[in-house]
Structure formats: structure tokens, C-alpha cells
């Protein structure tokens, strides 16, 4: 925003309060109320007006306070933002970035803890990013803002506490490029969001058991960096997919399909999936913890693929 007047942000409670998760703290003071806009509680209009502004060349970043409430803006995201380019024969672009956050781990209950990124990877015309580290957020957000398509940009609530040294200069990270967090020989874990960090813990534990784990974070879910994932699986011959969203019918199923199709002859074990149980996220902390996956679930899945501790 310091360099480009076309970039502005709007959303609920993002100004004085700096957003419900303090992400935009300090921005009002620096950029003023026209470029850091508190909006009425109107998710549909937040996205819709963002589309309008984007249509005439601005690069808006709009915030939906909880990803659970993208539901209220679904028409604008799915039928409008995603379709304008196509329905104008490529002549109209909607370079809009929709930032949102969510996830369990702090007991917000069934309507404030969901992980809904898989709804959007299924919509042609949208790009979907799920960033899991501070430097990834920075580099990917830059690329999302300057992408000529609408990008859904997911953040996980419990990762806001992460800290990382950062260079002054922004280093853009191209959309559609996975990150290999850790190299390994025996099992590939493809993980997103909070599960990247759970997978890294599980990988460290597996190492104690003599299993070498490679952890790959696609970072962009749509388009998906199939090449990096498939190359990794061809090296390790085993694959676990891990995300916090519900396992069934999830993003992990797509990764599993890609892997089995492109690396079938290399696989030594069925692709394992780790995710939430197919239940609404409970309010009660203990039960929430049971429903969502942890490092132990990733470790179990790793062990299953290498045939240890099998059930």
C-alpha cells in the first residue's frame, strides 16, 4: 500500500480495532480511513464492492472476518468474481484478493472454526492460497494482489503467533509453487495450514523412529503444484495428505488422486489422509481437540504407510 495507491483494504472492524485478529493494526494510522475502510456488516457487499473496484483497475484486498462467513458472500465469489473474466471473453479482469481466517484450536464452536478452503478450489476461475508461515503470507499476499484473478487467501487463526525474521524487501512468491519444508527419503507428507506445523513435529518424531519424512506445503491449492508433489512421492514412494478441514470429500482426496494417477507405479502404500472427523466442530475444548487432527495423527498415518504399528 505504501507503493501503490490502487491497493486498499476493507472489511469489518479492520480500522481502529485493527481487525478481529489484529492483522491490520496500525494501518488506519498510516493510510487513513479511505484506504483502510471499516464496512457495514455486509459480507456480500464487501466482496461485491471489491469486485466493482477491481473491475476498474484497483487491487482491493477485502477481509471476511471468519471464513465461516464467506457463506454470506457466496454468490459474489462463485458466480461473479470467478466468472467475469470468462463471461467477457477474457476482457474483464477482477484482481481481487479476499483474505479470511479460521480454524479450530481456541474453542470458537461450530460456526466459527471451520476450514472451508476446499469449497473454493472446486470453482473454476478462482485461485486459492493457504499460507502457513509469516514469510509465505507476505510473499504470497503480494502475488495474490498482483494476480489478475480473484484469489481467496486463507490464514489460520492459531498461526498468528508465529514469528519470523524478515528482510525489508518483499520477496514475491509465485502462486502455484509448493514449498518443501523438510527433505526426506521415506514418506512425503503434503500438508496445508496448521497441519504443516503438525507435520513438521510428526516428521521430527518419525526421525527418532528411523523414518525420514519430506514435508511439502503446496501453499497454493488452486492451481496446485502437482509437479513438486509428484516428484517428491516418486522419491519417497509413500504419501500422507494432511489438512485441518474434514477428511471426507476434501482437498486431500484430490491430492491422493493426483498422486495415484501420476505416481501409481512408484507407490508402496496407499495414500493416507489426515483431517478432521466428519462432524461439526464442537464448542467443548476437549471434544474440539478430538475432532481436529494433530501431529500424533500425522505420525500415525506415517507409520501406517511404512507398515509400522499398523492396525
Amino acid at each position, binding site marked *: 500500500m505504501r507503493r501503490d495507491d490502487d491497493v486498499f483494504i476493507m472489511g469489518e472492524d479492520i480500522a481502529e480495532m485493527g481487525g478481529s485478529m489484529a492483522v491490520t493494526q496500525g494501518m488506519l494510522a498510516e493510510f487513513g480511513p479511505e484506504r483502510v475502510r471499516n464496512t457495514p456488516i455486509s*459480507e456480500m457487499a464487501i466482496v461485491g464492492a471489491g469486485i466493482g473496484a477491481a473491475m476498474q483497475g484497483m487491487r482491493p484486498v477485502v477481509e471476511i472476518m471468519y471464513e465461516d462467513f464467506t457463506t454470506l458472500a457466496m454468490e459474489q465469489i462463485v458466480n461473479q468474481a470467478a466468472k467475469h473474466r470468462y463471461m467477457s471473453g477474457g476482457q474483464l479482469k477482477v484482481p481481487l484478493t479476499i483474505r479470511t481466517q479460521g480454524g479450530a484450536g481456541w474453542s470458537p464452536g461450530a460456526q466459527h472454526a471451520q476450514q472451508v478452503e476446499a469449497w473454493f478450489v472446486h470453482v473454476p476461475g478462482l485461485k486459492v492460497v493457504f499460507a502457513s508461515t509469516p514469510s509465505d503470507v507476505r510473499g504470497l499476499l503480494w502475488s495474490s494482489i498482483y494476480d489478475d484473478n480473484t484469489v481467496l487467501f486463507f490464514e489460520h487463526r492459531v498461526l498468528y503467533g508465529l514469528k519470523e525474521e524478515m528482510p525489508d524487501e518483499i520477496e514475491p512468491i509465485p502462486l502455484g509453487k509448493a514449498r518443501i519444508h523438510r527433505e526426506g527419503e521415506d514418506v512425503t507428507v503434503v500438508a496445508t495450514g496448521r497441519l504443516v506445523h503438525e507435520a513438521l513435529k510428526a516428521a521430527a518424531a518419525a526421525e527418532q523412529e528411523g523414518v525420514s519424512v519430506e514435508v511439502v506445503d503446496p501453499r497454493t491449492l488452486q492451481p496446485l503444484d502437482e509437479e513438486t508433489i509428484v516428484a517428491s512421492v516418486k522419491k519417497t514412494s509413500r504419501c500422507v495428505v494432511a489438512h485441518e478441514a474434514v477428511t471426507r470429500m476434501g482437498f486431500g482426496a484430490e491430492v491422493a488422486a493426483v498422486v495415484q494417477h501420476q505416481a501409481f507405479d512408484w507407490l508402496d502404500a496407499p495414500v493416507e489422509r489426515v483431517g478432521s472427523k466428519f462432524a461439526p466442530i464442537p464448542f467443548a475444548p476437549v471434544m474440539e481437540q478430538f475432532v481436529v487432527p494433530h501431529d500424533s495423527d500425522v505420525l500415525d498415518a506415517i507409520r501406517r504407510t511404512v507398515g509400522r504399528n499398523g492396525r
Partner: protein
Amino acid sequence: MRVERDLRRVIGDGESLPDGEVEGLDDADLLELYRQLVLLRTYDERSLVYHRQGRIGTYAIFWNHEAMQVGAVYALSDDDWIFPSYRESAIGLLRGMPAATVLSWWRGHPAGWWNPADYNVASICVPIGTHVPHAAGLAWGKKLRGESACAVAFFGDGATSEGSFHEGANFAGVLKAPLVLFCNNNQWAISTPLELQTAAETLADKAVGYGIPAARVDGADVLAVYEATREAVARARAGEGPTFIEAVTYRAAPHATADDPSVYIDPARVEEERRRECVGRFEGYLRRRGLLPDELREQVTGEAAQLMREAIAAAEAEPDPDPELVFAHAYAAPPASFDHDLAELRRVLADG
């Protein structure tokens, strides 16, 4: 359509503004209203303490909102339905719901799952405004069935920016549904003040476009709220359709326990509003009528405090929930996949 822009008031200020009266309310009614106000106030103040003690989770404070809830519900009969937002979480207490039930809800315990049909109090709606269409539909259903009951939807000033509110209100207007749209205009939506929420002069004006009459009342005046709601309910029962009530008050407390309003609210204004809070104002009214000797006040507050002590004890005495409940209620008949997840849960519990 009729929109009353002037704030209705019944309670005076004990100085230049004289006290009024509501026809049909006798002394016993006034004392019952007082008892209910104190009950909600005590519930709210104790809840804040319980939250700080880690005994309940994040809690949406409703301090200075009690008069709207008590006044409106007093104008209903028991078969009328109430659709609360999180701000009216304890409104069931006015229908005889045990305080332990509501505390359990805020504790994330299944004992907090009340059956809406037991109290005609719908589940608490946390997504903003999305319950307004439900209330419209329920009210319409009552009409179709030839029942005389109506519905009241409670929502905030911020909720009037949501499509759900507008579509629900329009529906109710077209269907002439027996609905009261009760807007708690506390002038804030978390950190967003009313003037950033709408350019309309009043929220009541929004009703005009849907052919719905509207009144504005002082939301800290339990009697004015009661009277306006009683009229709205009478219209609903007479088949005249919905009414919009804008109750104007001030959120003189944080949005919820997790909120720090000091970054966006002027503390002097909050202090000023706290001096005008609704329970104290009604106490002044009762005193001026000689209805509230000190012993009675102490008795009423003492009873409410005792009720809360028993309620938190009861909520905390609830046995740990059966973990299998996680899978019990999402479907009437759980899909086959649940067996697998349930088996895993049992395995985890056995290991643990």
C-alpha cells in the same frame, strides 16, 4: 407507512422529565418487571466474573440491554417464539429456563442444548442477522396454522446491514407474518459505530421500504419497550403483519469478554451512559412511586445472587459429557462413515 421517529419514553428522570404510566400494568407487574431486570443483570455480572475465573468461555456481555429483553418478553405470551442473538443468550430465563442451562451453553457443555420447543426460545444465533428469516418463516407458519402466536427476532444495529435482515423483513412484510423485528440499537457493532453502519437517519426508516410500521423507543426504559412491543404484538395477532421496533440504547460494556473497546470508544461517553443504565432508572421510577423500599431491593438482588450461585454450582456439577455425542446429533440417522469415526474415538479414549 407510519414511522415514529421520536423516542418513546415512560420513565422520567426524577427532575424535569415527569414519569409516565403504562395502562394495564399494576404494581405487581412493575415489581415483576423489576425482579426480571435484576435477574438478568445478576446473570450478566456474575457471568463476567465466572469468565474471569475461567468457569465459562468467551461471553457476550449484555449489561444495559436488560430492559429491552425484559420489556419485550413481558409483552409476549408463552407460546410466542423468541429468536435471540448472542446478546440475548439468557433471555430464556424469562421463560423459566434454568440459569444453569445457559451457563452450560457458555461452558460448551451439552447440558446447554435446550430444546427450543420447551421454551419457545430458538437456539442462539451467532452469525449476524441470519435468524431473521427463520423468525419470519416461523411466524408465517403460525399464521398458516391459524394459531394466534407470533415471533420476535432480536438483532443488533449492525445486523440491519446484512442481506438476511432485509430479505427476512421483506418476506415478513409481503406475507403479513405476525413478526416483531426487535432491533437492539446499542450504537456499536464491535468497533464499528452506527454512522459507519448506515447513512439512514434512523434504523426505523429501514422498515418503510418493506411496508412495515416502525417505532423508536428508549431501550433503557423497560416500560416504553414493553408498551411498544405490546402494540406490535397486538398488530401481529390482529393479522396486520410485522412491526419494527428500534430500541435505542448504548453498549456501555465491551462487545464480549475478548474485546478491548478502549481503542475505539470514548471512555467518558461510556461512563455517562453507565450512569443512565436501565436497571437503575427503573429503580428510580419504582422509588418515586414508593414501591421499592430498601428491604425489598435487597431481597430481590439477594434472591438473584442466590439463584446464580446455585446455577453455577449445578452447571459445574454436570458430569463430563459423553464424547460420543460429537457424532450423535449432526444427522437424524448417522451415515455409515460415523461408525468408523466412533470406533476410532473409542480406541483413542481406551488408549488415553
